[in-house]
């Protein structure tokens, strides 16, 4: 098989002149040219965004069609891949990035069985989405370049098993004109499970229209093997101190959910005032921030990391430094002005970039909240989905969100998602439930199916929904005029 791949490669190359002749790739050749450390990291992160979205699609039980739609959109955004016929695009550059991203993530995800399993599932799905959505010519050229080790069923066998094979063709095709391939049944378990094949002596007779299953299975089996090999070889890589931290971050990001590509800058400079915060928190805050607000109101105090997490969030939400000082001063009602100025004012100004290094820190993303500064026993920062006990989480969610439509009947689903480690999916589900009265349906997430990756993104989408609704009501009131005007 390897041999065939090597001879077929250059042959096609002559036609297209491309180093990477096909959009589809089984990734059996690692990128050989030099890769810069920047490329190493960006290609991997871009791919990781797509894989994470695939993962959360699984966690949210999306149908394959929904998943496909979302994945294609994500691919176009982060790792676009043009067809071979698209001569105006630098296809080699795109495909090179694709290969680099894949191989870097292999390094990052080969280290535990859990990571390997999740990576293989996500990658195989990505392959399947691309295989399903590319043109017939692209697919055919790819298939012709490879040998998938299946045996063509002979005419004699076809005659022998004609009635059985006919039953598989749903009356649509004639057995005589349909190609069948014979493979070990273990290579097409999904077809066996759905009774799409005829079995004899351990071999599955696969009609050509189901051939894709053989290829997906092949992709998966190769990747599983390759990852195990990589895992064995990895200790040698440990010596490269530039790469290890990058790899560590990548795998951690995958486990913690989606790395956020939501940028706080997208918050179009809208301002909020200190006296709006309590009401906003009840309608628009994710559980982590709602929890901090509730604690602050109850205790008139927050500990350092709580202040940091909440303060940066409020800043990104549009709270100016003046309003922030006002807000914190009011909230810390048990302290004298003197104590407040001495102990807290500096830090607040610092977080606005007005003291010290004068760095303007943005609000923390879910990934940062999930993985850095783990909360201690008396802390209230962190992510409730991850850092609360199941009991406390249930109580907290009900007390925070029952006025928004969350009921105890919703909890089992949320808790099982939490148990599986998909915290961002749980948070997204809560968003959907608490915004159902505004027309958000299950699976829609915070818009076009996306999951929550940043607390500010949660709040912004929530406020946008409200604004859109107000606009709509206005339109309805003025509706007559509008139509008349046209």
């Amino acid at each position, binding site marked *: 098989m390897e041999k065939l791949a090597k001879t077929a490669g250059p042959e096609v190359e002559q036609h297209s002149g491309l180093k990477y002749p096909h959009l589809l790739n089984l990734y059996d050749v690692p990128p050989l040219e030099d890769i810069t450390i920047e490329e190493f990291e960006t290609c991997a992160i871009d791919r990781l965004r797509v894989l994470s979205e695939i993962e959360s699609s699984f966690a949210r039980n999306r149908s394959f069609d929904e998943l496909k739609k979302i994945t294609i959109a994500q691919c176009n955004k982060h790792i676009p891949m043009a067809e071979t016929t698209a001569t105006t695009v630098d296809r080699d550059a795109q495909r090179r990035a694709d290969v680099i991203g894949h191989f870097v993530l292999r390094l990052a995800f080969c280290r535990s*069985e859990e990571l390997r399993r999740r990576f293989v599932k996500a990658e195989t799905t990505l392959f399947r989405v691309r295989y399903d959505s590319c043109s017939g010519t692209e697919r055919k050229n790819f298939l012709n370049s490879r040998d998938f080790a299946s045996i063509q069923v002979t005419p004699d066998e076809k005659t022998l098993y004609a009635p059985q094979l006919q*039953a*598989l063709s749903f*009356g649509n095709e004639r057995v005589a004109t349909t190609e069948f391939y014979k493979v070990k049944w273990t290579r097409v*378990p999904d077809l*066996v*499970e759905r*009774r799409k094949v*005829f079995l004899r*002596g351990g071999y599955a007779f696969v009609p050509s229209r189901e051939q894709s299953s053989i290829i997906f299975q092949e992709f998966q089996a190769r990747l599983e093997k390759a990852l195990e090999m990589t895992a064995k070889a990895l200790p040698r890589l440990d010596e490269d101190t530039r790469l290890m931290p990058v790899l560590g971050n990548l795998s951690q990001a995958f486990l913690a959910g989606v790395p956020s590509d939501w940028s706080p800058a997208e918050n179009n400079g809208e301002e909020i005032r200190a006296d709006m915060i309590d009401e906003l928190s009840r309608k628009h805050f994710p559980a982590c921030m709602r929890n901090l607000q509730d604690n602050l109101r109850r205790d008139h105090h927050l500990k350092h990391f709580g202040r940091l997490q909440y303060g940066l969030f409020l800043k990104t939400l549009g709270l100016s430094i003046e309003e922030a000082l006002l807000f914190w001063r009011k909230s810390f009602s048990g302290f004298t002005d003197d104590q407040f100025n001495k102990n807290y004012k500096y830090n607040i100004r610092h977080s606005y970039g007005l003291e010290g290094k004068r760095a303007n820190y943005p609000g923390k993303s879910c990934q940062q909240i999930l993985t850095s500064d783990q909360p201690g026993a008396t802390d209230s920062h962190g992510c409730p989905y991850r850092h609360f006990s199941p009991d406390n989480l249930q109580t907290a969610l009900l007390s925070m969100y029952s006025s928004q439509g969350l009921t105890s009947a919703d909890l089992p689903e949320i808790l099982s998602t939490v148990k599986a480690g998909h915290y961002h999916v749980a948070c997204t589900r809560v968003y959907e439930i608490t915004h159902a009265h505004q027309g958000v349906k299950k699976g829609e997430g915070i818009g076009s199916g996306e999951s929550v990756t940043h607390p500010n993104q949660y709040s912004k989408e929530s406020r946008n929904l409200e604004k859109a609704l107000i606009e709509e009501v206005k339109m309805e009131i003025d509706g007559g005029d509008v139509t008349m005007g046209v």
Partner: protein
Amino acid sequence: MPAEELEPTSPEVMLAFYRRLYPFKSIFKWLNHEHTPSRLFTNREIAFTLQSDVYLRYNSFTTAEEFKKQTCALNPTRFEIGPVYTARPRDKKTIRPSAFTPLLRELVFDIDMTDYDSIRTCCQGADICNRCWGFISAAVLTLDTALREQFGYKYLLWVYSGRRGIHLWISDREAMELTDDQRRAMVNFLTVVQGGKEMHKKVNVRIGKDPVLPPSVKAALEPLVEIFSNLILADQDCFKSDDGWEELLTLIPDKDVAKVLRRKWNDDEDRSSEDKWDDLKSEVGKYAKTSRERATMKAAMEDIILQYTYPRIDAEVSKHRNHLLKAPFCVHPKTGRICVPIDPERIQEFDPARVPTVGQLLRELDAASPENTAGEHADWERTSLKPYVEMMEKHASSLMAEVRREKIASDTTW
């Protein structure tokens, strides 16, 4: 103390059974596939259930002798066989969890009479008799054929579960190597009767526009037609009672046919299941041969036959490599019967009531002439356990011969 004075499965009885009768060597050969202990045996989990009901997992042994010694020392009520792991199960505590994963395992199936409680009319619950064994033998015939012909497996061992069911162990190398995903796929492929109490029609496997049975199910159906007639209609008389025939009518899609039959059967309480099936056939026969109605009813009747006779597999047992299953030749704690191997070719002659109990075997030993004890013959040879151990020995030998052949073949290629 004479054996007959003891409880059917008292600790004394069990200890005597393990010491003198349990065929540890045969079990070793069957699990290990060769004479010298390999990973197939040394990395194999054995889980003991002690007299106190304590459950001891992750035991493993290096030889058959050690296995016997430890079993006698613990004197369990029964024990189960698990997968071959990447390391020795008894070292589990000292190994990184990632270095301890299930690797190989016989493909196993479990068929239990309780899944037939809604159909059988002779017994309920834990009871089983010669008559309802017919359901199990139908299941064995169907599965045995499917696994050999379709999946190509050769080393199938059927074992009586000691009470009301049967286990199957498949030891072909390819079967041992199946992943959990592959096992799941196969079990779903083989599962045809699905849905709980609330679901009347439990067979929904047809494919295509004018729905046909998938080839595998069609192949299974042919022998089941006769079994249906003997077992369901004649013996169990499943449609005799009101509940029985009402259930049958729910499976008839043609409302006109169902209406005619309901009236007829309401009027005549004495109609047997055979009569009723004939009534159904003659109603269907009134439709023209090529009519749509007739085709629909023919399909419905085939589905009914499958619903009443097709094997009902306990899917969870088969799906995971690390599922534990009671070892052959263990004693069922309630019945005292031995979990003996069964020849699938003679499954219809098998009578669960005639399976030896542990007490009976020990009595047979007591009665046999004591001179032989010192001889080279094992104790089991002087009891009615003999044919069963011999069956196991024969099975293990052919498996070992196959492994030898494979070894020689792979040696010569190098």
